């Protein structure tokens, strides 16, 4: 004790500084330990409450496709978010007619009202789960509210709201939202493609093509990638317009990937000799889809290209040609003098399972 008081009464400033710094650090450490302890206690209490909630509601939601009880357990406000998560979880795993009862149960619990409340909370997680639920519940009356959230700058909030609109009424959403949808360059292409999945290709592709033809410009590359994700293809006329109005390399290479029109072959052939290798890569792949016997020399020339990827795609294209059988390919391989070309063809053949 005397020793400690010796420190406290020390006249050495260094000792005083060290002492008070240490006391401060000890104080903060003790506070942290107490905080960790109470945090853990609260966590345990929450987990227990959560377990009780799941014990009550999980069996009920799991069995609801076949039976909904007349009287539902009481749902406390503290479990609203858990309820939304659990209901959405079951919505994702229960498919077909069975999900009808899930919607009825959702209505009886009052999920749309609970979800709407979440939209105005500051926590983004709450907002997203609210938007997701309104979409899954196909809550038509919430269209204007969701429309408001679609126009928010935050990507995930906007995208989940857009998804909800497509769930409520896909055709209305397509007609009213398409220009806005494609203008949002922050939306991941695969996500938009997933949204559009519910609409048949023969409906969505003409709309996308028309939109692109009317707005050929900076957003074309994004739109073409979207078309690719939606398994759309373009014909000679569209491709001709693209290369005439937008000779940008990236747009051309994306457009090449979408061509399915044999009549466009004459437009594709010049790109096999393009200066940029990534265009030659796409030209090789497109030729692989459309080529006839007369185009084989062109593919063989690409097989000896200086760029590895061009050689690889040309080799894949050659091994995939429907008019070449195993014996033809082996003959072709033996006739190639260029070592790089023959190595690449060997690799592509091995990948295709040719022994």
């Amino acid at each position: 004790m005397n020793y400690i008081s010796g420190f406290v009464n020390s006249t050495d400033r260094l000792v005083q500084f060290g002492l008070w710094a240490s006391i401060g650090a000890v104080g903060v450490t003790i506070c942290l330990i107490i905080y960790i302890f109470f945090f853990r206690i609260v966590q345990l209490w929450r987990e227990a409450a959560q377990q009780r909630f799941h014990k009550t509601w999980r069996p009920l939601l799991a069995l609801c496709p076949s039976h909904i009880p007349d009287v539902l357990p009481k749902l406390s406000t503290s479990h609203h978010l858990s309820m939304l998560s659990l209901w959405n979880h079951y919505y994702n795993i229960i498919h077909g007619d069975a999900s009808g009862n899930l919607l009825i149960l959702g209505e009886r619990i009052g999920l749309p009202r609970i979800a709407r409340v979440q939209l105005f909370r500051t926590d983004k997680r709450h907002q997203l789960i609210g938007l997701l639920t309104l979409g899954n519940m196909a809550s038509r009356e919430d269209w204007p509210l969701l429309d408001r959230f679609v126009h928010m700058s935050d990507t995930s909030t906007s995208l989940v709201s857009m998804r909800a609109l497509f769930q409520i009424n896909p055709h209305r959403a397509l007609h009213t939202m398409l220009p806005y949808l494609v203008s949002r360059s922050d939306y991941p292409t695969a996500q938009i493609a997933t949204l559009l999945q519910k609409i048949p290709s023969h409906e969505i592709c003409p709309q996308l093509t028309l939109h692109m033809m009317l707005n050929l410009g900076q957003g074309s590359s994004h739109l073409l990638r979207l078309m690719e994700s939606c398994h759309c293809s373009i014909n000679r006329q569209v491709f001709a317009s693209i290369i005439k109005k937008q000779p940008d390399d990236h747009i051309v290479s994306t457009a090449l990937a979408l061509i399915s029109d044999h009549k466009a072959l004459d437009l594709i052939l010049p790109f096999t000799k393009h200066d940029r290798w990534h265009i030659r890569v796409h030209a090789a792949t497109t030729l692989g889809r459309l080529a006839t016997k007369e185009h084989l020399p062109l593919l063989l020339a690409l097989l000896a290209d200086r760029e590895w990827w061009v050689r690889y795609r040309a080799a894949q294209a050659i091994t995939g040609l429907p008019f070449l059988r195993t014996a033809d390919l082996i003959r072709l391989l033996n006739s190639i003098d260029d070592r790089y070309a023959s190595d690449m063809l060997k690799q592509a053949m091995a990948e295709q399972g040719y022994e």
Partner: protein
Amino acid sequence: MSEYIQIFEWVFLIYFIILNVGYISLNIIALMYINRYINVLSSDSMPTSLGGMEPPISILVPAYNEETGIVASVHAMLQLHYPEFEILVVNDGSSDDTLQSLINEFDLRPFPEAARLRLETQPIRAVYLSKKFHNLRVVDKQNGGKADSLNAGINISRFPLFCVVDADSIMQHNSLQQVVQPFIENPLTIAAGGTIRISNGCTVERGFLSKVALPHNPLVLVQIVEYLRAFLFGRMGWAPLNALLIISGAFGVFKKETVIHVGGYRANTVGEDMELVVRMHRIMRQQGKPYSITFVPDPICWTEAPSDLASLKSQRVRWQRGLAESLTLNFSLMFNRKGGTVGWLAFPYMVIFELLGPFLEVAGYLFFFSGLIFGFINTDAAVIFFIASFVFGLLLSAVALLLEEISFHVYPKLRHTLILFLAVALENFGYRQLNSFWRLQGMLQWMLGKKGSWGNIKRVGHEKK
């Protein structure tokens, strides 16, 4: 004489103050970041968020004499939940049966790979493709070290991102999904590391962790807290400043084109993982290219820590040499005009506290102990300095435990937290001092130019039989 002593005292005091202020600042940044991260993480785990956007990944597994564990590791990797990935095991001229065990287990057949040799490596003897799993290839090459093996893997890989995994790393089913998120959210991301946790004491079944627990070995317990500190506030503190200088070689994802652009892994270094990251910062900064090197705080990879002093010493000596190589080879980043937060903050911090730290720490111990023995320093000041250093160590570890508690909560029982806190207290009596001596030894080995090699440590293993 007394003037010199006073100067020494002030040098140590100022070093101690700056070091702790630095740590506390990193803690504050980490605390802010973890809150934001957990919020975003919850959003991203929503069913409709970024699913379906994952780019394909090549997993590179360099292997040297890994005969005992490689088959189980590859089996576990094949079970990862990820839309499209390939596994490339690079056998670096192992002298045991690593290659043969892979050939037997996965029905490997020679594959005529038209390799695209963009990085120089030791000659490749053969490439094999599995008949059972078409996303598994094995590259057999002449011995050239870990960096050389990784470069060979990069050459052979097919996908735009590659993930480096140690052959003995234990991943989680969703590890790839988590570590790839930064690449989906920010196209400027060129590298992302994950949090590595220690698997000693845990139960592993079929290559995956089935139960988290603490080991009984106090040496490993101390390392668990060290890892918590290193990852939960060390890396999480630097990452938001885009000044992260280390991505662990045990688990990290990189954009292939950028790695090739900066020249790939540097062979003949022992710290090839850190050196690559520092070089990426240097070159990207010098060329004025926007980029992001980031960190995913989720515990996504588990590794076995050394459980005996000899292995631990070997590891720490190697780490210090790796640090010295990484910093000196990229020294032009230090206070570089274009260096940004890396050149003006993280790099100098690393040089002063991590590179030169062992010299100052060991000198400090010698100075104070000899001062106490020979009576040339104030006993009160020495005692209070020791107490301050002890309690600040406790404080920093307590923050790391708090970060763990509010974030990932990996250790399920309150008892675990208390044991770890006890380990933190014990760490100050012997472990810290030993660590400083080993690091100093690493510095001396580096200064003497000792050659590096594969850094294997003695493994006990914990697979449930």
